[in-house]
């Protein structure tokens, strides 16, 4: 269950990242409060994912954290690309 959880947290972090760069990713600019929320989400989600992954054996946890970063990033990029396409 660790991988799905870290994957979802990374997806959340990437979606916050995309909302923080509205011109690059074609979103409407965020309001001041929402921008702060997005910044918090972009920082907090990977940290929580790392804490979750670290509960496993050290090496395995780090590998899962990085792998979920890669796969969540790819999924987010494909979704963003299909949205524009």
């Amino acid at each position, binding site marked *: 269950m660790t991988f799905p959880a870290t994957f979802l947290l990374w997806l959340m972090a990437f979606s916050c990242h995309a909302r923080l760069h509205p011109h690059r990713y074609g979103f409407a600019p965020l309001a001041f409060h929402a921008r702060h929320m997005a910044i918090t989400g972009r920082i907090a989600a990977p940290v929580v994912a790392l804490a979750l992954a670290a509960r496993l054996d050290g090496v395995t946890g780090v590998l899962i954290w990085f792998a979920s970063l*890669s796969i969540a*990033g790819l999924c987010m990029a494909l979704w963003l690309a299909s949205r524009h396409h």
Partner: protein
Amino acid sequence: MRETLRTRLGWLHGWAGFVAGLLAACIFMTGTLSVFDTEITRWMQPENRVPAKTALTDTALDAASSLIHEQQLHGVPVFLALPSVRSPTLDVLHYDGRQFVGTRFDPRTGMPIPVRATMGGTFFFSFHYTLLEGVTGTRIVNIIGVALLVAIISGTVIHIRALVPDIVRLRLSAARLRGWLDAHLLAGVLVLPFTVMIVYTGVLVNAGLILPATSLAHLLAPEKPGTPATSGTKAATAARRPLPPLAPLLAIARCSLQGRDAGFILFSPDHLSIYASDASGPFLTRDHADFSLPDGRLLGATTTPGPVAHAMQVMHGLHYARFAPLGLRWLYFVSGLCATATIASGLVLFLMKRRSRSGHRIGFRVGESLTIATLTGLPISILAFLWCNHLLPASMAGRERLETGCFLGIWILCTGHAGLQSSRLHMNAAWRPQLRLIGLLGGGLPVLDVLTCPRAVYALPALHTALDGMGLLAAATALYVRHRLGSDRT
């Protein structure tokens, strides 16, 4: 950052990436398959239908012991690979100069399983780190690894400004070159931690072959505890006597190795060594417990202490991933595919950027045909290798050599085809038929598997579905790229 530095690094990234990338793509492609080398061997030996996690019996150990004793009398240096989650059979193996061959025993009954001779998944593993050229090949692979690290570092520096903001940016609807560049950057940046880890650990695993300081390190290294010495007569007498029962020795070895499972047993005339399993943790060690023969008395356990040894063990463990459970193994596989895609898109970009300026030159055409031979020729030959395994008669003599011959022959044909088409200046003429062939061979793999080995598919559905699925994935990717080439009017 000064633009001159970016320009120079761009040149370095382009050329180092292209020259190293041609071989690196082959190394990564076969390395990615090697993540499942044991499973591929099982797919290629459909006669072996022993389910996973089958308990090992004393009967099977005794049967293996008898064969080992017999082979020892003939002077064959053998070892016994114990059943594991990935390979549930009990294997008595020896090295024939090219690969490990021997007899597989059913761990329940101790009956030999009459499996077909095949190169199996270890073929991809050997190709991955030797390019089928032995030590010279390993040296080349290591040098390519170093060049790849240079390409990665220079690429990261070039892209550093947009590294974080553009981390999930992919513009499929933009110009063709922009789309390929985005794909290259996206895959490259997102799997950067994995790529750096796998290349760095890979270089380190065989660093001794390219670093001249190794001989000095050997001189400075502390002496290893020697193997218990026995006189020649005593050793010869021990070899003539049957081996002691192995089950109690395995239990003692488990205690001596801090509770780790045994992976394999090496036999000498006067003693045997039980080694800890590679799957027992991320530290890939060669810790073992020694027992004298023929009485089976514990002589002691050998472990490698020290931070340097532990660092090297974890480097080996990370690269080989033998400790990884199935889920993590799939993550290695997906990351390997992404890293291969990064290299492949880099090769295509290199050619696209130079086509208008140098497309007519012979050097460009050679580069293009080599790229086609790598990116489509290698998958075709891999699939042909798998087809050959299922189509050749199971009892045919020398079939493993034919499998290799088929792999190399098809690859040479693909290279020839690519060279011929490139020399005629037909841009997509070589890509399209080769991509179609990948679609045909990959898409046909499940059909071939079901038609030729229905009992194996029924007995081990998950394993066959996964491997046939890889064929389908290759086919779908190839047909999608072919479709994009066809619809491209730019």
